[in-house]
């Protein structure tokens, strides 16, 4: 039996959105957004350096005291409320009041971004806004101290924000070539993040056409985890559906779509101008349905007249639930120097699904005190329990596109562990050729 699609009436008033860029990383993205035509009154820049702030025109600026001395403190001892002056807090509160949505962009490796972003998110949350934070994690080469700071800042921001979207800077390396300068690298990262923020901005301020609103998609992602990843792509022209899907799968965070089958939840938001057709929405979703057989999938599609002939695709996906994995009293341990947990935030963002790792050498099990062992077993039994509300059986749709096996079409198939090896590997592995 077919169900009538949910066609909601257009929203009466545009939601009030504020975008706050904190620290150098946040301001870099903010500058890109200002360049892309996001209204200046929605942009708020927070930095300790007057010179950096003065370089931005037409945005709200908040200067905070210089925190260079905080580098010497252990990451766990940096208190975000101490870094933000009362005047700055009052100013942020005033600028965010009345906002429905607040987007916080901050680099986690720095004292400023990792330190005050949580306080800013808390203020916005207390004012009733939905806080969506873009957390930028440092490059692997930036050293363990910075990664430690980032892990601590990441945990603080995760507790303060409603939903955390992660972007490990390391992923930028796939966008640049060997000869790229440092400035080019940061520009590439800024452009990528700005495209994500811009898509969010458009999604929030668009009239819903079918499925769910963007805010509902965010709420849906929260079911599994407070943190997730995002990928955004845009395309125009007659062939825009396959192009936008290919581009999205080629996004550094989508890793050639290999992350999707392992994702717990996937939220797909399709934005197009008035010409956006039902068939296009259907074709786009078919691509995701084929790849998310075991994931919970939610979608929304909306019209945005600013997009004209372009089709914009934004996808949120949570790969690993970390809810409750670090209790608040363990946070200090998590960020302690030398602790493996110091890198947890980064590890959780790594692809946990796709590529099979060689497990050539199995280390002996670590010797643990009985108390710790009991605690681990307890945690293990908790995670092993099936999640309530998650359907055990899902009816899936067979792929409509029949793949040709070329010269092997008429020969006996080579099946290895359920996989047809005659089908080109790049197709089975979702390697994008764009």
């Amino acid at each position, binding site marked *: 039996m077919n169900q009538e699609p949910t066609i909601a009436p257009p929203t009466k008033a545009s939601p009030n959105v504020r975008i706050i860029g904190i620290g150098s990383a946040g301001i870099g993205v903010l500058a890109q957004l200002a360049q892309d035509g996001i209204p200046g009154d929605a942009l708020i820049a927070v930095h300790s350096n007057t010179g950096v702030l003065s370089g931005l025109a037409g945005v709200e600026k908040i200067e905070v005291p210089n925190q260079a001395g905080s580098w010497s403190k252990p990451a766990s001892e940096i208190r975000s409320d101490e870094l933000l002056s009362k005047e700055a807090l009052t100013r942020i509160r005033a600028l965010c009041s009345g906002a429905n949505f607040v987007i916080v962009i901050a680099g986690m490796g720095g004292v400023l971004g990792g330190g005050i972003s949580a306080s800013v998110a808390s203020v916005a949350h207390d004012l009733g806004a939905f806080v969506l934070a873009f957390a930028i994690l440092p490059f692997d080469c930036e050293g363990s101290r910075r990664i430690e700071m980032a892990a601590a800042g990441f945990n603080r921001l995760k507790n303060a924000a409603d939903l955390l979207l992660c972007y490990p800077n390391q992923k930028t390396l796939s966008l640049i*070539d*060997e000869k790229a300068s440092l400035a080019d690298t940061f520009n590439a990262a800024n452009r990528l993040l700005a495209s994500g923020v811009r898509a969010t901005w458009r999604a929030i301020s668009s009239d819903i056409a079918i499925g769910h609103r963007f805010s509902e998609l965010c709420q849906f992602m929260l079911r599994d985890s407070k943190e997730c990843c995002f990928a955004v792509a845009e395309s125009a022209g007659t062939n825009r559906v396959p192009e936008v899907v290919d581009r999205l799968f080629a996004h550094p965070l989508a890793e050639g779509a290999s992350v999707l089958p392992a994702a717990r939840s996937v939220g797909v938001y399709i934005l197009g101008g008035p010409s956006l057709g039902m068939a296009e929405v259907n074709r786009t979703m078919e691509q995701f349905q084929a790849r998310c057989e075991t994931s919970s999938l939610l979608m929304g599609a909306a019209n945005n007249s600013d997009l004209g002939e372009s089709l914009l695709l934004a996808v949120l996906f949570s790969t690993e639930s970390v809810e409750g994995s670090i209790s608040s009293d363990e946070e200090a341990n998590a960020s302690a120097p030398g602790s493996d947990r110091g890198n947890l935030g980064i590890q959780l963002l790594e692809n946990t699904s796709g590529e*099979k790792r*060689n*497990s*050539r050498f199995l280390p002996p099990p670590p010797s643990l005190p009985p108390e710790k062992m009991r605690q681990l077993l307890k945690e293990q039994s908790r995670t092993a329990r099936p999640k309530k509300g998650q359907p055990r059986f899902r009816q899936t749709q067979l792929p409509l596109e029949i793949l*040709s*096996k*070329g*010269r*092997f079409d008429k*020969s*006996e198939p*080579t099946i*290895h562990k359920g996989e047809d*090896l*005659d089908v*080109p*590997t*790049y*197709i089975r*592995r979702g*390697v994008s*050729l764009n």
Partner: protein
Amino acid sequence: MFDPSSIIVGLEIGTSKVCAVVGELNAEGALNIVGLGQARSRGVRKGEIADVTAAEEDVRHAIVEAEQMADVEIRSVYLAVTGGHLRGFNNRGVHPVVSADREISEEDVKDVIKNAKTINLPAQNHVIHAIRQHFFVDGQDGITNPVGMLGARVEVDVHVVHGNLNRLQNAIRTVKGLQLEVDDIVFSGLAASLALLSNEEKELGSLVIDIGGGTTEYVVCANGIIKHTGVLAVGGDHVSNDLAYGLKVSLSRAEQLKIEHGSALFDESLKGQTITLSNELGLQPKQVNLEHLQRIMSVRLEEIFQLIGQDLEQAGVLDYLRAGVFLAGGGARIPKIATLAEQVLGVSAGIGKTNSISGLRSALDQPEFATAIGLVKFGSFHQRKKGPRSSLAEGLRSTLGQIFKR
């Protein structure tokens, strides 16, 4: 003209080529390669006969060429067999020593080997090889010859390679259709390992990967014995097919692109570079992105090595490979393939060389002739065991005779 009894011929009916190698055993028992014939293969898919008529014709061409080069008349061949139906596993035979003095005799050894070869296989399967590994006497491991030792129980491990009888007979019938006898059938991977590995490499632990057109065979030798064998029905044809599909070109063009621009690892310097393919029919020339070409190849080859790695890991033999990986077959010619193998399998890798045999340089230096040369080497071992061939009737009494009668 050579003495016909000293001539040994190896015949490989591969997916991309049929190759016949003629070897001569001299008076001292040393092997010399004296002839080589090859023809493009048209009747084989994934290592198995798909068109008997075409395959017969290709075999005939290869045999005639080999006969002309070696100046001999070929009467019988050692035939390489492969295909996705072949399986390898280790089996152990047990035999109680019943003599009063508990001394292990030749008879006990024969009996224990016979027991190890008694395998419960489906009726349609045939054992191609049951290769002896080590003996155990009362549980003591690593004994190479237990004759004369004292013990109550002797055991032996054998590595068994078996496959579907009907499919094996397809290849044998093709050869017999040309009035040639089949001295024995040999698993291709085993033949390649015989050609490429020295005794020291077999002792240290080596992996031979023969990447052919339709199949990839692999053999692990360690402590001087065959530890593990396997076949993947994936080879160079799959790489060409992937390219044809991904680059939207014909199979022949894909094959040509693979040879001219292919690489097992993506060369970053080629990012964004394209080549223009002219069209003989007067249509628009086609642009092919070199990055796409190498990425498609790279993921396929990487997958092949990953599948082999997983199988070896499961069999527990990956850590034996102290001498490294030796690549053979046409696939070994792909640039940077050894580097890719090293990256995936985590051990040093290189192209295998047939150094231990003398003769035609043109055959010995090419990785794609390793199997055919190995067949000749296998034949020479076989010949030495049997002594000089006196008549055709004796040849027919070989183990192979049994499968024709089945």
